[in-house]
């Protein structure tokens, strides 16, 4: 019988606070096949991993079960540790006694302890049947696709191309630059956004490794990390039929940016009926030297210079009841900037900013907002605006100052709404085409909110900029470079390795019925050209098991999760019942 | 760049917090060598001191430990802990850094990290890692999960060094690793690029006399509270106040302790306090179900993915009482700590007789960052945060070619932003190294050739 070691992690108090780990170790000691059962504070730590490595060597272990957290967290860690001690990594398995046991049974320590013991025994049974596997190696196309030509896409393309790899940059509209291209100056130094963008555009233009496709969208994306195939859809000339092109890429960066909540959604602010109630991006165009007014502030209704301007923050943000529950992050800062710029251009004008909380978090941001108040005499009023309406050629704002406890009214000439930042139009559809996840609002989901902020959950697809969540230019640029770093890391490999725990076909049992082909969600199944047997494309197979269920002859199996594995595991569980 | 020598494709990263570690892993995993210098005996930085992280409440240890272990074992990462960079010369492609290692008083080459010396050492001192919420021995590692897991002797605490007595650790060490005579050593490392990721420290709260920090034992800072909440902390995750070890039933959290105060402390916002305070109050309520948590704030700054929702969870699900107004005074009354604040929304002054007060201190750069900046000729602002070339579009580049910045060294930032910035700095280094190593083979493929 295989010599198996069981290592039980306390995970601080995460597991040990609920599960009696000593008792678990004691209970496993005499289980058939187990030659060692021990516990430790943090198995993932350096000494914890040393303990595993040392035990493998000293006890000649042929299988390891680590009872700890989810395999999503540490399977790689412990398999690597085993490999370092000379054990085939696929002989190491995790029994999840944290998410599946201690966290869900905190109120019943006795039951949690018993469940942990049963749980570990089933995994011991699995390990008994495990084969030693060798990871698959896959080829790697060292060329990147960047979707979206805003500041994020430009930066990512530049970083990848500067390192020497070719990049295809696709942009849906007819110009590069995205939202940054529409801005006047940027906070906190009022530098012209146009100039900042120009430096990036120039870098893109000058780099022969970057190929830009304007008016182009990703129609389809197939394949897998290292070998994506993309079908690009190019808008036809003069309204003609679109044309398509196909490319292969090793990695994809999604940098599709954001849109803004439309004015029509704000009934209390006129729902778009009042010409002098505009959104902040429209005001930004008014401030921009290349905008429709040449940088002069003129209200839309009659072209007059507005003497009183009301800025309404949180228009559609922080409002789970009617709009978006989240904070749009950038509005506090650009509103302060817009109010200051307004005051610079209309020195006798009065600006009011209605806010709930001022969120000026960044270097010199707080100071910037304070200077808007002190140097530019912008009046900040703490309270959300309830109503905007037009009367006698004025935009009247109803607000309240929650600090004095007084209702306030401003007879303004112009009102500027800081509308909520939303995902770009079509983001959810794009996510479906790319097979990556979004959150409930349509922002692309990162692999981990803390430590993997630019990776999607799909290998080889990375995220940058506001497509992931609202963020400002510095953060977007940093994230774009970070996404580029992930691509560069990927491209630095000679070849890619993939998990071998995928499906295979027992040709003797396969009748060639083909039921597995439509069952596969990854297009990984096909018929052999002449053998009349089903085959598995190992690069595409994700080991989900859908074909195993579909196969009427039990010819499809998953490596290290065969019927023998499953039955042994079931027996172990049921033995306790 | 010197014409006659090929540029060196090796990077020096100063600071092994999450920023330094992330940059190191990105670069090392791309096939280049990294020298990672850390002044503490082990890596992980501030994040290792944290209990759980907002907004998911993932345990910080659980998500960080795999990274510290990976960095510790990486064949292309050379860890130089308990060390500081004392000089850097040269230019892009050819920097020479002088790294000074403090005497650990332990020969790490033979030490196995068995921990016996720490167990037997009779001298206990307040642990800076635990923000004095707990004690450590005179021979110590920062945590049981330290990478590397090798101890050092605190020569200011060890009775052999102070009074010439003891040497117990030497007697118990099974591999004779203790070396009381060990001297500081210096090493020169040759690198082509540098990333500065020296992070932050906390504003000296003693300067804010009105809050009684340092005088009233039950007034602690946010990082100390992290240690109290941490499963591997001095109280194993139980909230106990320092004065008498009792479970506090009323806890007041005071934000902006030293931030947003140009006249009295720092003018800037420290960015992360709103969120970690919401987390502290929430975790406190998870640990002490019958407790009451008050948060005094000026503006709630919950700008980030799922941050606003997290703040609402604190008030709605965990019933944390938010009070808008900065606290003016904290004083002791019997065994309670009285807080005088105001509620600017109702226009009332308020008072809480609390059992414990937690301050959210301003983040400030490490003093030694200034020295590094001077050596490298990188400008800093008046508070010592280093300045990137352009805040908006060159956030990790500096005036000095080949030198990059990552994390809180440029301004307060949270973990995801720090991690993104660290990878961004790595991208810049990888770009340089790729150019120096010659044209990648992929470039031979003309772009867009297959377009139909």
């Amino acid at each position, binding site marked *: 019988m295989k010599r198996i070691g069981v290592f039980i992690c306390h995970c601080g108090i995460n597991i040990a606070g609920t599960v009696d780990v000593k008792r678990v170790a004691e209970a496993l000691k005499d289980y058939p096949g187990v030659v060692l059962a021990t516990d430790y504070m943090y198995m993932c730590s350096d000494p914890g991993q040393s303990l595993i490595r040392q035990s493998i060597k000293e006890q000649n272990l042929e299988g390891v079960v680590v009872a700890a957290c989810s395999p999503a967290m540490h399977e790689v860690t412990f398999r690597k540790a085993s490999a370092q001690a000379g054990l085939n990594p696929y002989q190491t398995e995790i029994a999840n006694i944290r998410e599946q046991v201690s966290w869900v049974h905190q109120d019943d320590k006795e039951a949690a302890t018993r469940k942990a013991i049963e749980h570990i025994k089933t995994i011991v049974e699995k390990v008994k049947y495990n084969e030693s596997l060798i990871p698959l190696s896959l080829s790697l196309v060292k060329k990147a696709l960047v979707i979206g030509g805003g500041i994020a896409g430009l930066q990512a393309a530049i970083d990848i191309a500067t390192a020497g790899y070719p990049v295809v940059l696709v942009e849906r509209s007819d110009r590069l630059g995205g939202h940054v291209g529409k801005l006047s100056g940027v906070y906190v130094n009022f530098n012209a956004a146009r100039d900042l963008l120009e430096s990036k555009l120039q870098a893109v233009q000058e780099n022969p490794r970057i190929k830009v496709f304007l008016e182009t969208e990703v129609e389809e994306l197939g394949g897998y990390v290292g070998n994506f195939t993309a079908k690009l859809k190019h808008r036809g000339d003069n309204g003609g039929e679109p044309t398509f092109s196909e490319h292969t890429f090793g990695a994809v960066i999604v940098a599709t940016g954001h849109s803004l909540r439309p004015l029509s959604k704000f*009934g*209390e602010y*006129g*729902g778009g*009926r009042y010409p002098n109630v505009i959104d902040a991006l429209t005001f930004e165009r008014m401030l921009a030297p290349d905008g429709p007014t040449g940088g002069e502030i003129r209200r839309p209704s009659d072209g007059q210079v507005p003497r009183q301007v009301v800025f309404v923050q949180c228009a559609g943000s922080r409002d789970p009841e009617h709009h978006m529950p989240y904070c749009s992050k950038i509005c506090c800062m650009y509103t302060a900037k817009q109010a200051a710029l307004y005051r610079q251009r209309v020195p006798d004008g009065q600006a009011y900013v209605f806010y709930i909380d001022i969120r000026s978090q960044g270097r010199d941001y707080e100071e910037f907002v304070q200077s808007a108040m002190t140097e530019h005499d912008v009046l900040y009023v703490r309270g959300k605006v309830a109503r905007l*309406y*037009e*009367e*006698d050629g004025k935009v*009247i704002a109803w607000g309240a100052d929650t600090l004095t406890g007084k209702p306030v009214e401003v007879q303004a000439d112009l009102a500027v709404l800081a509308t909520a930042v939303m995902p770009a139009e079509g983001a959810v559809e794009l996510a479906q085409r790319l097979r990556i996840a979004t959150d409930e609002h349509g922002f692309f989901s990162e692999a981990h909110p803390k430590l993997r902020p630019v990776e999607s959950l799909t290998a080889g697809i990375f995220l940058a900029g506001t497509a992931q969540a609202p963020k400002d230019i510095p953060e977007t640029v940093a994230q774009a470079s970070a996404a580029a770093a992930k691509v560069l890391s990927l491209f630095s490999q000679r070849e890619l390795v993939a998990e071998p725990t995928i499906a295979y076909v027992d040709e003797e049992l396969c009748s060639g019925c083909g039921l597995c082909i439509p069952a596969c969600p990854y297009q990984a199944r096909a018929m052999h050209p002449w053998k009349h047997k089903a085959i598995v494309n190992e690069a595409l197979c994700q080991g989900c098991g859908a074909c195993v269920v579909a196969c009427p002859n039990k010819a499809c199996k998953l490596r290290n999760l065969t019927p023998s594995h499953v039955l042994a595991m079931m027996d172990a569980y049921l033995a306790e019942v | 760049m010197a014409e006659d020598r090929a540029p060196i494709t090796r990077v020096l990263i100063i600071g092994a917090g999450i920023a330094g570690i992330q940059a190191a892993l990105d670069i090392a995993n791309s096939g280049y060598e990294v020298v990672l210098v850390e002044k503490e005996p082990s890596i992980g930085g501030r994040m290792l001191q944290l209990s759980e992280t907002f907004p998911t409440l993932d345990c910080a240890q659980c998500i960080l430990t795999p990274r510290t272990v990976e960095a510790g074992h990486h064949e292309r990462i050379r860890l130089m802990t308990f060390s500081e960079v004392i000089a850097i010369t040269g230019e892009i492609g050819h920097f020479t850094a002088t790294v000074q290692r403090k005497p650990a008083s332990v020969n790490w080459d033979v030490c196995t990290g068995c921990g016996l010396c720490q167990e037997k050492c009779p001298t206990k001192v307040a642990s800076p890692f635990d923000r004095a919420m707990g004690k450590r021995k005179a021979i110590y590692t920062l945590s049981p999960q330290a990478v590397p897991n090798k101890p050092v002797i605190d020569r200011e605490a060890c009775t052999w060094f102070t009074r010439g007595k003891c040497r117990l650790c030497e007697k118990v060490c099974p591999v004779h690793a203790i070396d009381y005579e060990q001297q500081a050593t210096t090493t020169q490392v040759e690198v082509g690029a540098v990333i500065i990721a020296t992070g932050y420290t906390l504003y000296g709260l003693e300067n804010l006399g009105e809050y009684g920090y340092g005088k009233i034992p039950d007034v602690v800072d946010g990082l100390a509270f992290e240690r109290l909440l941490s499963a591997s902390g001095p109280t194993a995750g139980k909230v106990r106040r320092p004065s008498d070890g009792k479970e506090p039933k009323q806890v007041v959290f005071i934000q902006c302790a030293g931030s947003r105060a140009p006249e009295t402390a720092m003018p800037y916002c420290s960015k992360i306090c709103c969120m970690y305070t919401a987390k502290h109050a929430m975790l406190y309520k998870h640990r002490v179900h019958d407790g009451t948590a008050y948060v005094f704030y000026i503006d709630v700054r919950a700008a980030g993915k799922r941050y606003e929702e997290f703040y609402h969870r604190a008030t709605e699900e965990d019933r944390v009482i938010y009070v808008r107004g900065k606290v003016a005074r904290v004083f002791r009354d019997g065994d309670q700590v009285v807080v005088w604040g105001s509620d600017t929304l109702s226009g009332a002054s308020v008072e809480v007789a609390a059992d414990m007060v937690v301050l959210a201190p301003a983040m400030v750069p490490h003093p030694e960052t200034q020295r590094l900046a001077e050596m490298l000729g990188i400008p800093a602002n008046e508070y010592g945060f280093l300045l990137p070339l352009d805040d908006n579009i060159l956030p990790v580049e500096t005036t000095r070619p080949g030198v990059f910045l990552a994390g809180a060294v440029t301004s307060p930032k949270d973990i995801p932003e720090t991690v993104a910035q660290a990878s961004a700095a790595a991208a810049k280094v990888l770009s340089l190294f790729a150019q120096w190593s010659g044209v990648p083979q992929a470039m031979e493929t003309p772009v867009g050739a297959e377009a139909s």
Partner: protein
Amino acid sequence: MRIPYYPGCTLSTKAKGFDQAARQSFAALGIELAELKTWNCCGATFPLSRDNLLDLVGPVRNLVSAAAEGDKLAVACSTCFNVLKRSNLVMRNEEDKREKVNFFIEADYAGSVQVLHLLEILRDEVGWDNLAKAVKKNLADLSVAPYYGCMFLRPPKEMGFDDHENPQILENFIRALGAQVADYPHRAECCGNYIAAFDLETTKEMSYLILASARKAGADLIVTGCPLCQFNLDRWQQDLAMKHGGFRPIPVLYDTQLLGIALGLDATTFDLDKHYVDPRPILAEKGLI
């Protein structure tokens, strides 16, 4: 067409003109508003305390009566409409309260009746185009300010048949009658409601905001569908004219009164003489009476 009809207390007493105009106008449009055989006061305000189930008894009894006579219930008064519609939703959606209220009144009612405002019937059953065809008088020279008040539109989750911030039903009604709509901002602000009984000065000022704004928009008169709004807006205009120099009083009509006039009905039973600000001069000036 015959639709069961709930007049309510005020329409049976102080606002008889409102009621008369409703019945006659709808009859002219081929709809019989058939008064419920038994009905009682709706309660005049929807109970806002969760445990206040007794206050639901009144409105629900009316709904039970309505259910015996048909599947729809027409209501003219916005306040009654609000109370009946919201009470009906409670009976439809909140099982616990439904059981208790049914137990109190020995009924088995689950919110089957559809509570409709007269304007909804005009919009959805008659149709604006058909209404326009039935109009006999020329109102083209009349500028009318629609006044919604609160109860008709709010809370939108429950009332929800028009955009609560930018409602259109009264505007479309006025346009169908051939009159001009005076666009003014305060058509859905509160007139002061029952505060009048407690703090008259506050009510007056709340009403003044609406009146002055309608005047400024060039309105000849205001129409509304709520007797209390009508009273609050109408009653204090002399005081307000004295207090706010330059304010010219403006008549406040019920929507059904204007409807009846437009349909060419004899307005003598509409009690136009009972209004505080007499609407007859302006109506006569425009050749409508």
